[in-house]
């Protein structure tokens, strides 16, 4: 089955240029595709190969490469395999095409990515704020946003410094645990 799938997918994807194809296990396939060819690939997968279920769209912020990686995980109920289509788009201006016309669940994921990473999806039905309606900072999931620094700047903690902690610190600090007591 898995071998057939491989050949079959090879045939299917052969006519798309700029594509790398890698089988990770019998039910997981990784496809690397250029950003311009991705909608066509998904259309092929859905129309000709019964990959009707969009499991998720993940976004990864590769800040050093100045790129966002978008990963479309699609699942076929018939061949029982999952294709992860990876594509990369430049970080600036961070605009890409929506696949809402192919997969309706994309609306949620695209809205979420827009909110968390600031990637705009053209043609998506709803790009309004959803989770972060009361947040006016930068998109928080971008790597340059430092949550800890933000918290230190905006919140104050309870000053908790009880006597037993002071005593411990006088003794040199830290709690000692013998190696045999460490349990996972």
């Amino acid at each position, binding site marked *: 089955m898995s071998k057939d799938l491989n050949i079959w997918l090879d045939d299917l994807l052969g006519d798309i240029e700029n594509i790398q194809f890698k089988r990770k296990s019998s*039910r*997981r396939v990784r496809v690397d595709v250029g950003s311009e060819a991705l909608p066509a690939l998904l259309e092929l997968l859905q129309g000709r190969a019964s990959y*009707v*279920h*969009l*499991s*998720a769209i*993940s*976004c*990864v*912020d590769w800040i050093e490469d100045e790129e966002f990686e978008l*990963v479309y*995980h699609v*699942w076929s*109920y018939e061949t*029982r395999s*999952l294709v*992860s289509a990876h594509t990369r788009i430049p970080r600036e201006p961070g605009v890409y095409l929506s696949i809402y016309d192919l*997969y*309706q*669940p994309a*609306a*949620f*994921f695209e809205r*979420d990515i827009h909110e*968390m990473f600031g990637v705009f999806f053209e043609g998506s039905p709803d790009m309004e704020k*959803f*989770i*972060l*309606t*009361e947040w006016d900072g930068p998109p*928080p*999931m971008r790597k340059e*946003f430092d*949550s*800890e620094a933000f918290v230190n700047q905006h919140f104050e903690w309870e000053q908790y410094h009880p006597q037993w902690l002071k005593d411990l610190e006088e003794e040199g600090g830290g709690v000692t645990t013998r190696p045999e007591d460490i*349990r*996972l």
Partner: protein
Amino acid sequence: MRPENYQARSQPPSNEFELNFGPNHPGIEGNYAFRVKLNGDQVLEARADAGYLHRGFEKLMEGRLWIQNIALVPRICVPDPVPMEVCYSLAIEEIGGLEVPERAKWIRVMQLEMSRLAAHLFAFGGHAATTGMYTTMFWGVADRDLILDRFEELTGGRVYSIYNIPGGVRRDVPEGFLDRLSSLLDYLESRLPDYDNLFFTNQVFVKRARGVGAMTQEQALKWGVTGPNLRATGLEFDVRRDDPYLVYDQLDFEIPTESGGDALARNLVRRAELKQSIRILRQVIERLPSIEGPIRCPIPNPLAWNVPAGEAYTRVESSKGELAYYVVSTGGDKPYRVHVRGPSSMHAVQVLEKLALGARLEDIAQIMFSLDACPPEVDR
């Protein structure tokens, strides 16, 4: 705001009005909100409003060690936390190439099914309460508590066990645990007819739930519905069987389906799954003593553990539907990116908005509870 500024808003006379449904509302599961526009009793438009439970999990996980995140992940879905741990551990094992011992796999399956039982009891107890039948809720939550007792014995935690770690599980099964679990299953099985009589075959409930929030199989597939909600439309699909993980391919169980696709069908599927979970647990109890071996594979010092670079997409079947983790590692001691695909991110937002259209005010809560939507999965 001063009282003299309270002004009645002048509105054109109309039958239509807007109503905030949540976040502080007993018809909402968790902390979540709806804005609905009604014409009389009928919903014209509905719009979900999430983010009340947003903690920025995915961001937090990027700032913590691989092993620290184990404590973080179960918080993403409170009623059904174990699949979260397992799914995250599976992803790390796939990236790190860890070989999980056989015994650990069986213990994980046991835990997953216990968690499913608990979550389903909670879910239909909640649904019963929205229709005014509090007795079922009292019974369901109390019976769930007995499962939590077994969790406490096994893992030390009632709700959040933090028991699965990459490479296996934290502790072995205590002595006599399987016997106690077995007697608990006997008890639960003897309770099922009571639940049937009280709730699932209660004519008033059947009348209330039939046809509420109904969707066809095509719609369900188009909207990305998964789990029991998809099976209620007649599609026999279960990640446990069709994309097997752990040892589910060695277990014998059925996948219950219903054809109605409405609130009633979804509840009946959950009811049938209770039985299947008990069946799986019995098989585990039978097989587990004969499987010797370690309960986890050796992993490096977890506080200085660099998981090799790679990425993995793992899926498990939680009680709500398909749960998936996408984990990316760049070889550091912390994950580079973790993306959580909670099943409710579909059910609680798009599916609920669509099913609510044309429904009646008294059915919104039923639709939400019958979809078993879990808001923290949306908000993360």
